[in-house]
């Protein structure tokens, strides 16, 4: 495209040849179409956020800062008389919406998921590229891609039927008896629905995605870094960790953030195993939690019957918060990528 660009400009500076005339409209159309496509993409995000904020505005005023600091979520007494009025906006009597429990649950479950899945994914990606025997590689790659494509409710159902009872009856008792002295690993196990169940399910869901993206990034680097490092006498472990991984740092960070975004936004699978905590923070890794995405789904049904509409609008405000968190993650991701690119640029 760059050469075409230069050619077009060079031609138009001189006398326009018939061939150039033919080329310019194509160039124009291409630019206009891609420009519109770019605007639509950008515009869609803007329009979505705009409508979300407009819809949530009464809730933003009604809830104030308490939305981010309070841990009590109460849609109010739908069958009571009167209303609660704050800042000129009304909710059902006794209504107060604090999202701290859900924000905490979203962030903590996504972070713990990263703690488990980042090292595992890196290990799997590296072994897929360097150590898995060539004959098995296509099969292993196909399996990873298959796992990445499984719908989330399937993971959720498996989690509810298999994983949750296993946590309640085997994993939980084992951890609390052997490692219970470590903070947040001891205490009540409860039903098995909870933080650790969500984290395990989320890890299962994001590991294939991270493996696939990291593997592609490593493959895009030529094999020469690995081979050069080996030639200099390093072990394959040293070659992978000291030479290959640093060279693909930006790509790896991007895939981690992609996975984080997926983990924090996952709804159905989490809803099925998280234990849907409300008004209470987890006491240990087995305690029920709740996430923003899950609570929007589970509370929608009752919010629909709120005659003041404030419950629905507060759910929209929750959606705004999730939107903002995702946006922040993306901005950080871009910043890291750019920083890494610049650092690499200086080196070369």
């Amino acid at each position, binding site marked *: 495209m760059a050469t075409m660009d230069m050619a077009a400009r060079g031609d138009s500076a001189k006398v326009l040849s018939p061939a150039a005339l033919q080329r310019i409209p194509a160039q124009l159309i291409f630019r206009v179409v891609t420009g519109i496509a770019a605007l639509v993409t950008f515009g869609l995000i803007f329009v979505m956020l705009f409508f979300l904020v407009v819809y949530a505005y009464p809730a933003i005023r009604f809830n104030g800062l308490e939305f981010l600091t309070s841990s009590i979520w109460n849609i109010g007494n*739908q069958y009571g008389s009167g209303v609660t009025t704050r800042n000129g906006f009304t909710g059902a009597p006794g209504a107060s919406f604090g999202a701290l429990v859900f924000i905490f649950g979203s962030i903590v479950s996504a972070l713990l998921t990263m703690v488990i899945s980042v090292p595992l994914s890196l290990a799997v990606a590296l072994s897929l590229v360097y150590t898995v025997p060539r004959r098995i590689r296509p099969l292993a790659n196909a399996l990873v891609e298959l796992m990445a494509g499984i719908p989330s409710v399937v993971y959720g159902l498996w989690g509810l039927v298999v994983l949750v009872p296993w946590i309640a009856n085997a994993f939980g008792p084992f951890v609390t008896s052997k490692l219970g002295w470590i903070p947040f690993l001891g205490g009540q196990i409860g*039903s098995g629905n909870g933080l650790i169940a969500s984290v395990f399910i989320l890890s299962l869901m994001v590991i294939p995605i991270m493996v696939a993206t990291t593997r592609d990034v490593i493959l895009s680097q030529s094999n020469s870094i690995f081979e050069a490092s080996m030639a200099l006498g390093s072990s394959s472990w040293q070659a992978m960790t000291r030479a290959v991984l640093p060279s693909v740092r930006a790509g790896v960070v991007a895939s981690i953030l992609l996975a984080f975004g997926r983990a924090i936004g996952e709804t159905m699978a989490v809803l*099925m195993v998280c234990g*849907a905590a409300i008004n209470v923070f987890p006491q240990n890794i087995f305690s029920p939690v709740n996430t923003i995405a899950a609570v929007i789904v589970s509370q929608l049904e009752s919010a629909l*019957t709120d005659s003041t509409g404030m419950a629905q609008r507060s759910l929209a405000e929750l959606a705004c918060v999730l939107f903002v968190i995702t946006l922040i993650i993306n901005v950080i991701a871009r910043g890291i990528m750019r920083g890494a690119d610049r650092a690499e640029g200086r080196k070369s």
Partner: protein
Amino acid sequence: MRKMLALALAGLVVACAGGGGRAFAGTNLLETGSTLLYPLMNLWVADYQKEHGDVQITTQGTGSGTGISQAIAGVAQIGASDAYLADAQMKNSPMLNIPLAISAQQINYNVPGLNNVHLNLSGPVLAGIYSGAIKTWDDAKIKAINKQYASKLPHLDIVPVHRADGSGDTFIFTQYLSKSTPSWSNGPGYGTTISWPSVSSAVGANGNPGMVQTCQNTKGCVAYVGVSFLDQAHKAGLGYAALQNKSGKFVLPTPQNVGAAAAALDKHTPQDERISLVFAPGANSYPIINYEYAIVNPKQQDGAKAAELKKFLDWALTKGQNSKYLGAVHFLPLPGSVVKMSQAQVNKIK
């Protein structure tokens, strides 16, 4: 999960019905809402359509809240709901609340060694459990109402399970706590979703199947489950409690006791039939029962649909009360006087 799927399907069905691209020439009706009523609606509709080939009724289990809002929006002709509309909602959008059947709710528990007997539980004890004041099964307050099993009650943590999604079952369960326990009434109160007290062991589960599944997984659990899931709860090996009624007697959700509670309140049912049947008076009245409602807009947009809607509801209130339909989901027929009131409401549909 089924709810989401149903929501997506609802849109599709509406789009198809509106498109006029169907080969079916008769009238289409859409019923959506309560997952407790859904199995009964399917039994009803299957037989009704054998007699009436000119009407096509689509049924959906989407949850009471969706049913109510889609009936108000005019998307569905029947919004099935376990709860009647609140005054504030009636003011915004006056709808008919037409009882179709009587349902009940059992309190299931999973206490090893005691699942084959019926422990006694009361409103104040359940309120204590759900607010975190009563923490273990050998608590003195539980022993006091279960003297015959006092030595067998284990020192086991209680895990109170509640619905994570909005639910008519939460509505009637919290009504029982509110009516029997002043501190609950002044605190969390009742509704299809409530602000549950902060209890770290409390678990939220999705739908009645999720309640049964979670309770089965969890030793020490207590859960409220719609009576149409009695068979599933039994298969899961869970026990169910005898509940203390207004007269102080502990009673089981047998058809006789549920019927006694319904009979105690049929005379008190107002013309618009919005009444709670929970904590009914009477020596044998089972304390957690409710009317299952069809929420219907009295002013239908389409005359032909209104006529077919009236015919179907009238059939449900007469032939539909047969125990071959209701018995399959452990519902009970409406008392005669209530059927008359429901029919009077059906006649208001225009």
